[in-house]
């Protein structure tokens, strides 16, 4: 009976419909060309002293079927306690491989990110969404199989904060890292696609990790999340990310994520 249930579940997973629109990472797929998506994200972590908060606003654009760019900015109350503007960042992704078939694909993309943060270095985490200035280069591979999608990302970061180059400061923090993630997504609803107006529900589980290379620190986080898609053009994400192992000093080693984005198709470039 158990085996039958497992087989049925697997069969259902491999039938029509699947998602690779991860919450904490990017898939190898790109946004459609000529589309524009604004996105707002909130990260919250309630500690004894206060609630740590970060707010991010991003604009994502599909330039061609292979290339997309994001620009974003972040605000947080870490470590100051009061909400302040902290960083600006730009991200671009180039899809260089795409093997498509019905309800499946294998894709690979390369990405690059550059960030500027006004904050001084006070934690170990090489994070380009608010904490540090620097550049990141990486590769993503995604396999879509019916209702399931699996993705792996590997990247290298070089933090370029001023403290790194100030030899008088003797900064005790790391500036180089290897980052990786492993993500899985599953389409739960609808059971059968009949219209674009149906509510879509996807669940994800992501493993996100970092190992710093100059001073040896690391973290491994787990991030389950749930995603609602409305009218096939808007997404609401709810996630919880927490550290399962690590020795880094971090501003936020766990917390809730709430984000919302809406896609406008055929609004930029050649129509």
């Amino acid at each position, binding site marked *: 009976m158990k085996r039958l249930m497992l087989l049925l579940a697997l069969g259902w997973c491999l039938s*029509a*419909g*699947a*998602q690779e*629109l991860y919450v904490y990472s990017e898939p190898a*797929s*790109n*946004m*459609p*060309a*000529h*589309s524009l998506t604004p996105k707002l994200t909130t990260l919250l972590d309630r500690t004894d002293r206060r609630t740590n908060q970060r707010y991010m606003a991003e604009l994502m654009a*599909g330039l*061609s*079927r292979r290339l997309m760019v994001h620009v974003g900015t972040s605000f947080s109350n870490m470590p100051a306690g009061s909400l302040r503007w902290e960083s600006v960042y730009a991200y671009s992704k180039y899809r260089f491989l*795409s*093997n*498509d*078939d*019905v*309800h*499946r*694909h294998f*894709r690979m993309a390369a990405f690059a990110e550059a960030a500027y943060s006004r904050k001084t270095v006070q934690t170990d985490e090489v994070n380009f969404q608010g904490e540090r200035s620097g550049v990141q280069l990486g590769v993503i591979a995604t396999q*879509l199989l*019916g*209702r399931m999608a699996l993705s792996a990302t590997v990247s290298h970061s070089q933090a370029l904060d001023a403290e790194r180059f100030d030899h008088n400061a003797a900064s005790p923090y790391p500036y180089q890292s290897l980052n990786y993630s492993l993500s899985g997504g599953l*389409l739960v609803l609808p059971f*059968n*696609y*009949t*219209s*674009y107006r*149906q509510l*879509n529900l996807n669940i994800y589980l992501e493993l996100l990790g970092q190992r710093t290379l100059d001073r040896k620190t690391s973290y491994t986080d787990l991030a389950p999340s749930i995603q609602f*898609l409305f009218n*096939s*053009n808007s*997404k609401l994400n709810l996630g919880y990310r927490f550290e399962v192992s690590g020795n880094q000093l971090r501003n936020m080693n766990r917390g809730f994520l709430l984000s919302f984005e809406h*896609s406008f*198709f*055929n609004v930029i470039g050649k*129509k």
Partner: protein
Amino acid sequence: MKNIIMTALVLLLAASLRAQITGVSLKAGGLTCSMCSKAVWNALQKVPFVAKVDVDIKSQQYNIVFKDTAAIDLDALQKAVQDAGFSVVALSVTAQVHDLAAQKDQHLLISHQYFHFLNATGQQLDGTIHFTVVDRTFTSARNYKKYSSLSSMSCVQTGKIAACCAKKGLAGQTRIYHAII
């Protein structure tokens, strides 16, 4: 003799003018989610000669209805799907023809576009016909490999008319769609 040739040419022209594509059904690959499907649907709707697109999200089938007087361009449909981020894995065409002879390795004119039926056996086509385009960008790699071996003409690989046929009055860079009927 001249009269016979003139009559033959007029008949040929008349036959080709009467050969019209009435509908296209396209299957998209590389996606399953409805958001991705909506991106494809939007892209197809935006193609100038498309009047309406009916979609079956589950099977990723897009049935396209054309505007009455517009010139149809199958490559433009494929490009729309590609720009949305996906691929065409199957494209079947429905056409109305009158006394069209499907000779092996012949280029037939339907709706101002040239078609080369790779599995033609000289059959006489009349009325409603259905055929599947099997050019590289319109089908899976597997299918393309299978069907492209049915003809040794170079247009199968390039999608453009080769020197062998160009001298029969057709331009050197004319697009030829290869299909299975």
